[in-house]
């Protein structure tokens, strides 16, 4: 099973940390004022981050 590509669009991220907190497998970490993908392999495609990001900044590209 190929792992999905999780993307944070830096231009749109405002660093609210919702994705960091609500990701069940801790894919994200804060990097200064914006979120960064640190453990892409751990993603289980639950889509919580994409659903909750208020800034249209997180995208989960599944096959």
């Amino acid at each position, binding site marked *: 099973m190929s792992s999905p590509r999780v*993307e944070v669009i830096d*231009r*749109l991220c*405002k*660093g*609210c*940390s*919702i994705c960091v*907190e*609500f990701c069940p497998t801790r894919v994200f970490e804060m990097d200064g004022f914006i979120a960064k993908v640190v453990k892409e392999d751990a993603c289980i495609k639950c889509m919580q981050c*994409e*659903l*909750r*990001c*208020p*800034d*249209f900044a997180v*995208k*989960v*590209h*599944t096959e």
Partner: protein
Amino acid sequence: MAYDYEKSIRPGKLPHIWCPGCGHGIVMKGLIRAMDTCGLDKNNTAIVSGIGCASRLPGYMDCCTLHTAHGRAAAFAAGVKMAKPEMNVLIVGGDGDGVAIGGNHFIHACRRNMDMTYVVLNNNIYGMTGGQFSPTTPTGANASTTPYGNPDPTFDISKLAIGAGATFVARTTAFHATQIDKLIAEGIKHKGMSVIEVLDDCPTCFGRRNKFRSVVDMMKRLKEVAVPVQAAAKMPAEKLEGKILTGVLFKEERPEYCAEYAKIIEKAKGANA
């Protein structure tokens, strides 16, 4: 695939103006998904708003939009619906815009039962103008104009809508992201006035004055206070203290205003013939 929200957003409009962690973006995503579910044609859909943070939402949406005077969104929307009854009319506004400054328009729009969908983004405060208390600010909560706590009792927007005569009333929160689009879609499909109250967070104006350490704390609070209406029916009254019911709160079928008005026109034509 990642959900394609961009197709429904005017090119070059992002990033939006909302503060980091503001739930309005989550509701906007829900609205886009609901419009896709219902298959609304963007050329035949009008989103009307008044003034406020929530009322900035139509500015980002790629469909027919109308940004009007403070509190008057329901009145302008009624005008659009009367002129073009085949058009899908949605209203988006905040709690201050909808039930304080536009309270009169809100209740009368509910009473007439026009086929419109009103999405109220209730963040308990006037966010855009600097955090003044609104009719939905909880009793005892701090706002910039109530620094020692708000003495006023609060409005329950959903109960107000039911009392005023709306025929579909539902409530959800910004935490319950998937419920937002389901309820808005149900409201759009309902023939008559639908009011969907979405409890939201305002980290900038409400959160920092009321001891919420972060956006995530505010989101978790929304999760804690929400009780689905079906579950609440089986719970004892003392457990429901301080809780907020979510889900479809009220639904009934009643004649729709535009259809009734068309009958009056036909009747008047017959009388003159």
